[in-house]
């Protein structure tokens, strides 16, 4: 019999499974669960986008596209980024269509990482950054953003971790899992450090349209940052197109070219059907998107108020569709809390530590759910909290 364990790549073996899997297995066996654990919109892709895709299939768009993606789509993306952020990208060699931001992140990291290069990863953050860095041969260096600063990383924290081996910095605002956004001024400070130490920035701005207060700043739009930024974005969140698997990467022709080299051998091109749909989304999708964004914003306020009323301490998330409340007053770890909440109150959330060690003591609650579900979940959580914070207080009183 073959011993796969001996044969498998040690590098991949070292990468841990995402902590989310465990809850997924647990949840899938249960009935009557209200889930705040979903990292994707509860809307279905707007019909006009689906319809455009169906039409493209009828017309016979079933072939490979250029490695870079459909030129028309790249042009549309360039136009969109210029109109929104005044950053100029040449569609021919500075825009690459990818299979989601997921592929974009992988390509970016592989294109720039030499063995042993360090990549700065502010945490909590999306689950793929550190594993993709490791699999690219790099060394992820975590920067714990502090809860006191609403989990926004600071220029000083970044500078502290810079070594001669530091190659790149990953930024991700609006943030999954915290819902934090970052101001232009804070980004300017970070840009100074980036410039001083000659770093590359990989900026995952997939939630940029889901910014509820203030305006999103595209990192590449900051002075002198365009040339050293790999901008990653996609259609998953704003247009409710997660399953289509489509994103894009923009940046200096040298690095986008390098990424395209990997992409041409590993992916060839992004699916043409999704590219046709994305074209429709950019050309005619603004109105429906705005409606979805307005709806998220209302739910955001509802959830925040609800959490406050049941005594769940939470800073105000101003982007994405997550809230990241603290559960420290229960005395439980994030994992204990999430598991108990699931088994006893039938509410699914994601423990914060899954997104980085400093997410410990928090849970991620997605408000991409109906108002009815959100209300029900908050009610259940309230009863649950009463039981456990009550016990905690009793214990404290007894020992004090």
């Amino acid at each position, binding site marked *: 019999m073959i011993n796969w364990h001996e044969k498998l790549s040690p590098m991949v073996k070292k990468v841990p499974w*995402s902590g*989310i899997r465990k*809850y*997924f297995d647990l*949840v*899938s066996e249960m009935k009557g*669960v209200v*889930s705040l*654990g*979903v*990292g*994707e919109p*509860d809307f*279905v892709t707007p019909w006009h986008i689906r319809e455009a895709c169906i039409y493209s299939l009828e017309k016979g768009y079933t072939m490979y596209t250029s490695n870079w993606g459909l030129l028309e789509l790249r042009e549309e993306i360039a136009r969109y980024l210029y109109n929104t952020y005044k950053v100029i990208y040449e569609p021919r060699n500075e825009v690459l269509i990818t299979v989601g931001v997921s592929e974009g992140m992988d390509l970016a990291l592989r294109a720039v990482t030499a063995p042993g290069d360090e990549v700065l990863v502010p945490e909590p953050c*999306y*689950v*793929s950054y550190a594993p993709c860095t490791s699999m690219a041969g790099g060394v992820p260096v975590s920067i714990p953003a502090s809860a006191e600063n609403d989990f926004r990383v600071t220029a000083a924290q970044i500078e502290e971790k810079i070594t001669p081996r530091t190659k790149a910095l990953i930024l991700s605002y609006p943030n*999954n899992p915290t819902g934090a956004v970052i101001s232009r001024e804070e980004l300017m400070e970070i840009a100074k450090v980036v410039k001083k130490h000659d770093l590359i920035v990989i900026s995952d701005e997939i939630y940029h349209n889901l910014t509820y207060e203030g305006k999103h700043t595209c990192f590449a739009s900051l002075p002198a940052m365009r040339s050293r930024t790999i901008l990653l974005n996609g259609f998953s969140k704003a247009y409710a197109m997660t399953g289509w698997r489509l994103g894009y990467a923009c940046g200096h022709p040298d690095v986008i070219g390098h990424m395209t080299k990997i992409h041409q051998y590993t992916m060839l091109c992004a699916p043409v059907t999704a590219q046709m749909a994305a074209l429709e989304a950019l050309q005619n999708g603004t109105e429906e998107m705005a409606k979805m964004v*307005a709806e998220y914003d*209302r*739910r955001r*306020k*509802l959830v925040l*108020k609800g959490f406050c009323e049941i005594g769940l301490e939470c800073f105000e998330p101003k982007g994405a569709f997550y809230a990241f409340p603290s559960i420290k007053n229960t005395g439980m770890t994030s994992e204990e809390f999430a598991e108990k909440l699931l088994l006893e109150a039938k509410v*699914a959330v*994601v423990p914060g530590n*899954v997104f980085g060690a400093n997410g410990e003591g928090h849970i991620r609650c997605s408000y991409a759910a109906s*108002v009815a579900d959100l*209300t029900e979940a908050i009610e259940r959580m309230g009863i649950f909290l009463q039981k456990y914070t009550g016990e905690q207080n009793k214990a404290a009183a007894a020992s004090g």
Partner: protein
Amino acid sequence: MTLDKKDREILEILQDNSRLKPEQIAVMLGLEIREIEKRIKALEEDKIIVKYHTLINWENAGEEVVSALIEVKVAPQRGAGFDKVAERIYRFPEVKSVYLMSGRYDLSVLIEGKTMKEVALFVSTKLATIEDVHSTATHFVLKKYKQEGIILEDGEKDRRLVISP
């Protein structure tokens, strides 16, 4: 009454779900509960909010409901136009909606009853006999797919994984 952005938002929220309480709407829009109540009251008084109703799929309850769309051609009256005839028609409780139409006919009348016979009888004895009604053409509804913006068949269910990153 001229609507502002908040009024419009309140209307959109209520149109989608009229059971939301003023407390919830207040939180969603960042306004005081009093303010929401005041605005809703004004919208009701101005007949912008006409009624809070419930969309019921009687078929799912196993109840037989027969509906028919009647094309009605009428002779407009001097001074009153179509309004007088329309009024004669919409007063009947069997009549669920009446629209004045452009094109081949004048009034589109939706009628509901328990049986086909009942509806047909209503048309022939009550509707067709109204003075100024020239002719009627009755189209029975065979199946309702979508009503008031809601797809009745196989309402799209949540197909997402329960947990995802």
